[in-house]
């Protein structure tokens, strides 16, 4: 259950940003979770909601963008959704595929007052 460790890391970043921006109440957190991360979004949401209970962050919404695994063919440059981990370009059949999205675990922004 490393979603709790990940939540703690996220809350540390949020607390730092709230302090440096002089805001007191957290309203919303926007994050991106790639398909190829070992992170279960619903487990993360559960940990987040439990961790902020009875804190100035209580009630804040967690908006999670699920990022699909996306590749780019090194031969022809086509960008495509990698389905079922099949690393074959749908356009030219090339098999040298660079993964350009789907591994992120990023905090994008927060909204606070």
């Amino acid at each position, binding site marked *: *259950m*490393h979603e709790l*460790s*990940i939540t703690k*890391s*996220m809350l*540390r*970043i949020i607390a730092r*940003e*709230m302090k440096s*921006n002089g*805001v007191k109440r957290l*309203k919303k957190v926007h*994050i991106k979770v790639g398909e*190829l*991360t*070992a*992170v279960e979004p619903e487990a993360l949401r559960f940990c987040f909601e439990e961790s902020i209970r009875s804190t100035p962050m209580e009630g804040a919404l967690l908006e999670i963008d699920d990022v699909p695994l996306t590749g780019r063919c090194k031969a022809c440059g086509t960008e495509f959704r990698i389905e*079922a*981990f*099949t*690393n074959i370009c749908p356009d030219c059949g090339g*098999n040298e595929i660079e993964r350009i999205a789907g*591994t*992120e*675990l*990023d*905090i*994008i*922004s*927060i*909204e*606070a*007052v």
Partner: protein
Amino acid sequence: MHEILIEEKILAKNGEIASENRSFFKERKIFAVNIVSSPGAGKTAIIEKTVPLIKDKVNLAVIEGDLATDLDARRLLKFGIPVKQITTGKACHLDAHNISHILPWVLEQKGVSLLIIENVGNMVCPAEYDLGESIRVVVMSVAEGDDKPLKYPAIFSSSDALLLNKIDLLGHTDFDIDKAKENALKINPYLKILETSCRTGEGINEWCAFLEGEMTGAEVKA
């Protein structure tokens, strides 16, 4: 209402400490191997087979990560090499911070050139935590499902090598080794795949040769 843009990796702090660990290893010419697998795939057994084959050639030390007990560390003490147990309590993985705390101990062992880190048995959580290792090796046994790479893609995707272990059991299970390799390479086309058995010793020489080759390669690059 303020919208505050952050755009930062959530595990940026772990990443920073991992980079510091990596620099520490590089400056001291220490090759660090992070071994990950589900519980019971044979990580400790592989280390037990590896140590006698290479301990006269390289100066090695082992870090054992477990939730509780020092049973794994005790299994290795018989070889007379430095072994440090980290118990994570309830944490299901080692993180870069755990390793940074152990670095002074690594230095005390004088001249370590190979540091083997056995992670907590878990195929999910260790995938997200860079320790600052030189290579990551995932172990999977033939007593597991050959579809495992597809079920736990993150750990296979982030590893450099795959050891298919307990191959002496092939024939007693429905494990399809070609299918397993195909699945693993789908997730990570760059994976080096080796077959091992700690009971018969099959493949252990090849694994040690691979490890020594990687160490030499890292030295050349540095």
